[in-house]
């Protein structure tokens, strides 16, 4: 009886472990150099129509362990972002974090040095080992963040990166 009860307990525990997301593992798998093999800038209009501009091989992200990631078990990384598609260039050397569901990433203080409202939020649309698709959204001609007015802006820009990891 004791043995069977122990098995039941073990099964429940293992089942729960199997379902638990491991955000630190996901972040550790991001370590390395990711080439931005494709960048798509999509302008979205209120009637649902879109205009796309595609660019190839426009830069890279170099993701490395953060030396001050105390107590986060690898959940925080350093990131070097270099981008130039000929029409637009950007760069960032800072901190990358994710959420516990591994659905989003943030480049912390991308837009400004303040504590709040300065991060670039990124959606992880596809996570397929050595290939990732990330998207972020903007207002045209603006890096504006944290707005309250989705009902007032008729045009938006969706920025999609397709990333491939360098190496084997």
């Amino acid at each position, binding site marked *: 009886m004791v043995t069977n009860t122990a098995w039941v307990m073990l099964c429940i525990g293992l089942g729960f472990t199997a379902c638990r997301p491991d955000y630190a593992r996901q972040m550790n798998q991001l370590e390395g150099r990711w080439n931005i093999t494709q960048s798509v800038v999509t302008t979205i209009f209120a009637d649902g129509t879109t205009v796309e501009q595609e660019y190839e091989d426009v830069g890279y992200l170099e993701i490395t362990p953060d030396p001050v990631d105390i107590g986060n078990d690898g959940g925080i990384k350093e990131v070097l972002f270099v981008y130039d598609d000929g029409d637009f260039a950007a760069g960032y050397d800072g901190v990358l974090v994710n959420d516990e569901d591994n659905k989003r990433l943030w480049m912390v203080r991308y837009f400004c040095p303040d504590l709040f409202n300065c991060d670039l939020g990124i959606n992880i649309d596809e996570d397929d080992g050595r290939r990732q698709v990330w998207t972020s*959204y903007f207002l045209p001609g603006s890096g504006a963040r944290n707005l309250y007015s989705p009902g007032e802006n008729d045009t938006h820009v969706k920025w999609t990166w397709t990333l491939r990891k360098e190496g084997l």
Partner: protein
Amino acid sequence: MKKVSLVLFCWGLIQVSFGQMRGAGDQGFIPILTVEYGYNTIDPQPLNDFFNSYSTFWGSQVAADWQPVTTGTLAGPQARLGLRYWSGTGAVGFTAASNFMYGYARARRTFTFTNNMGHDLRMRSHNLGWDFHLGIVGDRWYLVSLATAHVRDLTLDMYTTFPDGSRSLGNLYKISGIYEGLVTTFDVGLGVGVALKKVNLTAKLESPLPGFPPARFLVTALDYGTNEEILDEMPRDFVLWATDPVEYANQAIPEDQEVAIVVDSFSGLRLAFGVEIPLFQKYSQ
């Protein structure tokens, strides 16, 4: 690790399924699997207050309003795995049981602006419980008192949707995000079982003990990154949240439940109907 855990989990189930259990005859321990539909009620008012204040704030720019939530919005299937002690036949006997419970429920609400922007709110709850039964058993029935420790992992995915069908959890608009909170309750109630061939049909009614655990009514649905630097709170009063963040914060500190979505509102009476299946043998009847 995830795949290894799944393999071990399945192997463990096989071990249980073919294990030798006492209990053949009129008494003993019987491993049981209970499959149920859980009507886990919530207090719909805080979320509906958010919906109403959001619509009020946007006024004429609203094209399709939120559909209100109800007490049964987060009802869903659940399963229990455990042991039942069974003693006596014919005359009234004694029964006791303990189970681990897991349940899952989800719901969705949408909102559209006149410029075809919008929101897609996806609610998900994972429910874990550990229950204890103690009661009496007759020839073809049992009646038990229940005590259950519950943990509900609640997630509210608030997407911003775009006219081309794209959707984002990112921070272009502040309200977007993944708001999470743990609801912990200790419930007491009653359960009945009626034998039907080799299984029991069961019904359970439980209610959370008020005020236990202490201060659970202060836990709000928060959006945060793993560095815990990015913080947002799911507002109950959107107008105040959007127009006066300082006053919102001032009010949120002493009385969160007045202006924020408090996860305790996602708990309430629990009613469950199901089938209790003995895993290795039929109940003695």
